[in-house]
């Protein structure tokens, strides 16, 4: 096919698939009908020829019988009458008519029949004459007429034989024509069967090449698009499948474009975030260091109101920095870019650093942070990030504790995990929020954002950090009596064993 392929639509193709075999079958049926007609005609003709033969035989027999009758009249001298003769010869005109009918389309034969009829009639007249002369007693006259008959009869016999030969020839011809016709019909049937088989195969191949295989190309393309694999070349043609193929490819291109645009947006966002994270930090450092110095009196003696305002500015700078850090962290976690600097680290040391970080804030709030130390546990973790988690949990605990309460830190080993718990005596977390508070911007009370100055991101960041370490974070609480925020970090197999060994070696646990 290839370049010769007709530009047909699917409807036209289906019409072709149905129409061509149908036309063929119709043609075949017509041909068969005509052949049957021919066969029928040949059979009728053969039958006619045989009837004619029978008529000829009948004429011949009757002629012989009448001759015998005449001969009998002479030898036995009486016994037969003219009525007997008439009885014998009565069928002859009918037989002649039959003959004439049979050879109605053969001019030669017709001439012969005319002659035969004339001669027959002449002979019959002679016979009549002979009989009537005998009956009237004129035997001599009769005898003379009989002599005429002697010449006429052989001549008639010759004519009859001639016609018989013609009839036989004709019958034979028609017979062989019939068998020829039968062979032709058989051949036509064979041809039709072969053509049907080939046609069925051709239709199947055509349907496959034109419809199925091309639909499969489209199906294969739909499979490839979500995998991002290159699409197959166009299916070609001008039908609905080709249209579907083109439309589908257009859609795939549009999708690809949209995906590229999305990636570009993502890249721009990353650039923007990294720009902010770099360009915002340096000026913020200047501000923070300056207000720190001012509020700490490192800039020399300043009036009391100025110190107060400086401390306020200091707090706000710290909040602003905390907020920016939280937002950047959340962005990193969402884009899956949170990287951990994992190393074997002492868990008590991490907790020590965290407690140190919140001590100032806790003291200001009048909260005691209780940390009695624990057995040496080595975790494979990013120390700074775990400190971030602890500072967050401790900060929350301090914020939500009543005046003069204490916040306790408990660390214990649970199998291959280390569990760190921050226990407060605050208002607690309602049961239905215990999972939700780890989502972004979820706080127990809507007032928390303003009163407690939280971003609502802290616990979400803690959760992300802990989970990145392969740990879990959770919250237990009795409402009104306080909450326990805990997280578990895996102690790596070999490290855990080493840690156990070193633990046993040390008999006392340093405070």
């Amino acid at each position, binding site marked *: 096919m290839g370049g010769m392929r007709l530009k047909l639509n699917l409807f036209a193709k289906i019409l072709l698939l149905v129409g061509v075999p149908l036309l063929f079958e119709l043609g075949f049926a017509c041909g068969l009908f005509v052949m049957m007609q021919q066969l029928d005609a040949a059979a009728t003709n053969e039958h006619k020829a045989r009837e004619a033969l029978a008529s000829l035989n009948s004429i011949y027999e009757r002629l012989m019988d009448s001759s015998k009758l005449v001969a009998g009249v002479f030898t036995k001298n009486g016994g037969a009458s003219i009525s007997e003769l008439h009885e014998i010869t009565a069928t002859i005109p009918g037989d002649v008519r039959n003959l004439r009918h049979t050879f109605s389309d053969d001019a030669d034969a017709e001439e012969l029949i005319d002659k035969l009829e004339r001669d027959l009639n002449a002979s019959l007249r002679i016979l009549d004459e002979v009989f009537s002369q005998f009956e009237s007693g004129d035997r001599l006259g009769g005898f003379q007429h009989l002599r005429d008959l002697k010449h006429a009869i052989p001549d008639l016999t010759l004519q009859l034989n001639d016609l018989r030969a013609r009839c036989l020839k004709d019958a034979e011809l028609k017979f062989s024509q019939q068998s020829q016709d039968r062979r032709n019909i058989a051949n036509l049937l064979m041809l039709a069967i072969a053509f049907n088989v080939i046609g069925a195969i051709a239709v199947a191949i055509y349907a496959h090449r034109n419809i199925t295989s091309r639909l499969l190309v489209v199906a294969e393309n739909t499979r490839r698009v979500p995998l991002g694999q290159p699409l197959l070349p166009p299916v070609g043609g001008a039908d609905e499948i080709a249209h579907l193929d083109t439309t589908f490819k257009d859609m795939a291109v549009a999708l690809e474009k949209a995906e590229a645009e999305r990636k570009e947006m993502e890249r721009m966002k990353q650039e923007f975030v990294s720009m902010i994270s770099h360009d915002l930090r340096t000026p913020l450092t200047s501000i*923070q260091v300056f207000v720190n*110095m001012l509020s700490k009196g490192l800039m020399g003696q300043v009036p009391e109101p100025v110190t107060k305002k400086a401390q306020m500015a200091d707090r706000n700078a710290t909040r602003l920095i905390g907020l920016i850090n939280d937002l950047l962290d959340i962005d990193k976690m969402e884009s899956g*870019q949170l990287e951990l600097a994992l190393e074997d680290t002492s868990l008590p040391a991490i907790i020590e650093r965290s407690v140190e970080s919140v001590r100032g804030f806790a003291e200001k709030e009048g909260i005691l942070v209780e940390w009695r130390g624990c057995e040496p546990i080595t975790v494979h973790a990013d120390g700074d990030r775990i400190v971030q988690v602890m500072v967050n949990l401790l900060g929350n605990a301090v914020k939500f504790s009543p005046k003069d309460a204490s916040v306790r830190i408990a660390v214990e080993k649970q199998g291959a995990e280390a569990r760190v718990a921050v226990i407060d005596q605050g208002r607690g977390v309602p049961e239905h929020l215990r999972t939700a508070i780890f989502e972004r911007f979820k706080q127990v009370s809507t007032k928390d954002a303003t009163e407690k100055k939280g971003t609502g991101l802290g616990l979400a960041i803690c959760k992300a950090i802990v989970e990145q370490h392969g740990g879990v974070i959770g919250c237990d609480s009795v409402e009104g009596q306080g909450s326990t925020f805990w997280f578990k970090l895996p102690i790596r197999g070999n490290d855990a064993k080493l840690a156990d060994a070193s633990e046993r070696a040390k008999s006392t646990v340093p405070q």
Partner: protein
Amino acid sequence: MAKILLVDDDEDLAETLADLFQMLDHEVLVVGAGGPALQAMITSEFDLILLDWQLPDMAGIDVCKQYREKGGKARVLMLTGMRDAGSKEAGKAAGADDFLTKPFSVDQLTDRLQAMLA
């Protein structure tokens, strides 16, 4: 009393930090780029070098690397804008002793100074 080299291209921050160091009785030299910093490192000895992550002429870690290659022994504190683990490792490989993520408070800075000068 220690001798500190502060390398940062942000003049305001450099001035503020220089004031703080002087307030804390340290001697401080401020330069705004990597080239002059390496020059200063050759001409005089320092106890501590504060090195910004990104300088106008070169990267802070490259300054650190070259300093260490020349046999510089002073402790180096990198001031970074990023908190990611990758840059920390790169800094350590270049020979930096510690990191301080901007923005930092006076307390965080003085804690770090105390630890490094001890």
